[in-house]
């Protein structure tokens, strides 16, 4: 009885695994892998620079109307500010200008906050809102957002 049950269990696990693996390999056609030479160390350095110089000041000074915690946060997707590179991954270097977007995640749903442009070696970090031509410093952007928010409340 014991051996039979264990055998049945193992067979079931084996069938499930074979099905899962075969579907996995069959479901995705394998395209030729692109030969991208990404320096992940540099990529993370740039990401860290964006985090410290753009995300952090925005996080501290720009409170979204939906607040920090809500039912949306009860999710398997991380919430909060997140930088997403627009510049191709292999071109993200510390000595180059890198473009991207700051988005705010509420669970799995994201909302656009601003565009950014950074260069780590030059110590350069600027942002702009959608529709604006010119990039400005993060502090200026935050001040403008604050003024705009005050006007909206008065209006």
């Amino acid at each position, binding site marked *: 009885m*014991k051996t039979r*049950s*264990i055998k049945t*269990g193992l067979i*079931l*696990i084996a069938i*499930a*695994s074979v*099905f*899962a*693996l075969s*579907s*996995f390999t069959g*479901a995705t056609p394998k395209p030729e892998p692109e030969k991208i030479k990404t320096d992940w160390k540099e990529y993370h350095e740039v*990401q860290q620079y964006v*985090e410290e110089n753009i995300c952090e000041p925005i996080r501290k000074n720009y409170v979204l109307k939906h607040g*920090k*915690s809500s*039912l949306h*946060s*009860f*999710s*398997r*997707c*991380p*919430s*909060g500010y*997140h930088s997403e590179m627009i510049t191709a991954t292999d071109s993200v270097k510390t000595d180059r200008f890198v473009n991207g977007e700051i988005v705010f*995640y509420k*669970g*799995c*749903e*994201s909302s656009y906050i601003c565009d950014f442009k950074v260069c780590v070696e030059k110590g350069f970090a600027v942002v702009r809102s959608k529709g604006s031509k010119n990039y400005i410093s993060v502090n200026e952007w935050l001040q403008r957002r604050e003024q705009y928010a005050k006007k909206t409340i008065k209006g």
Partner: protein
Amino acid sequence: MLLRFILKLPFVFMTSLALLLFCTTMMYWSFKPDVSFLLTKQDVVHQPVWRTAFYVHIFGGMLAIALGPLQFIKILRQRYMNVHRAIGKIYVTSILCIAAPTGLYMAFYANGGLYASIGFVLMSVLWFYTTWMAIYSIRKKQIEQHVHWMIRSYAITFSAVSLRLWVPFLSLYTTMDHLHIIIITAWISWLFNLIVAEGVIKFGK
């Protein structure tokens, strides 16, 4: 009386969170491809196999997460054994035949890449194993072993809830980037629960 109530608080809290997950998962039954988690799976959401696995998985998962707490209610076990058995059969079927195999399949497509996939694969296998062992032990009339394996099984079922608590906690209160949060929570969501389960088994007698 008060002490008894206080001792029951963790159970009430766990059940409330399980029901919260049950309710929030209902939104997927609109079958829209751009709802919550599916927003992050736009690369696979239109694949019939993945999409079927996803809906089958949440169906089985919802049954297991909602029915599990009922099995720990003492009165139900003592006075209504038939109800306990019937619910138990639905619980184990929903895991062994529905949620665990589809979870295993979906683990290969997990956000967070290889390390997250390994975490979810292990979780699915352990989910299947602990539930299977719970049935095996009750068939052998080993009641204590059955209770222990069921606690472990529900600890893994409950990782669906703890994942949704760990992720916002780490994302809102640490400076960890999103990718690392996804990878770490793919592991701690069930590992932490299993440690708690072992504690309950050892000290909760």
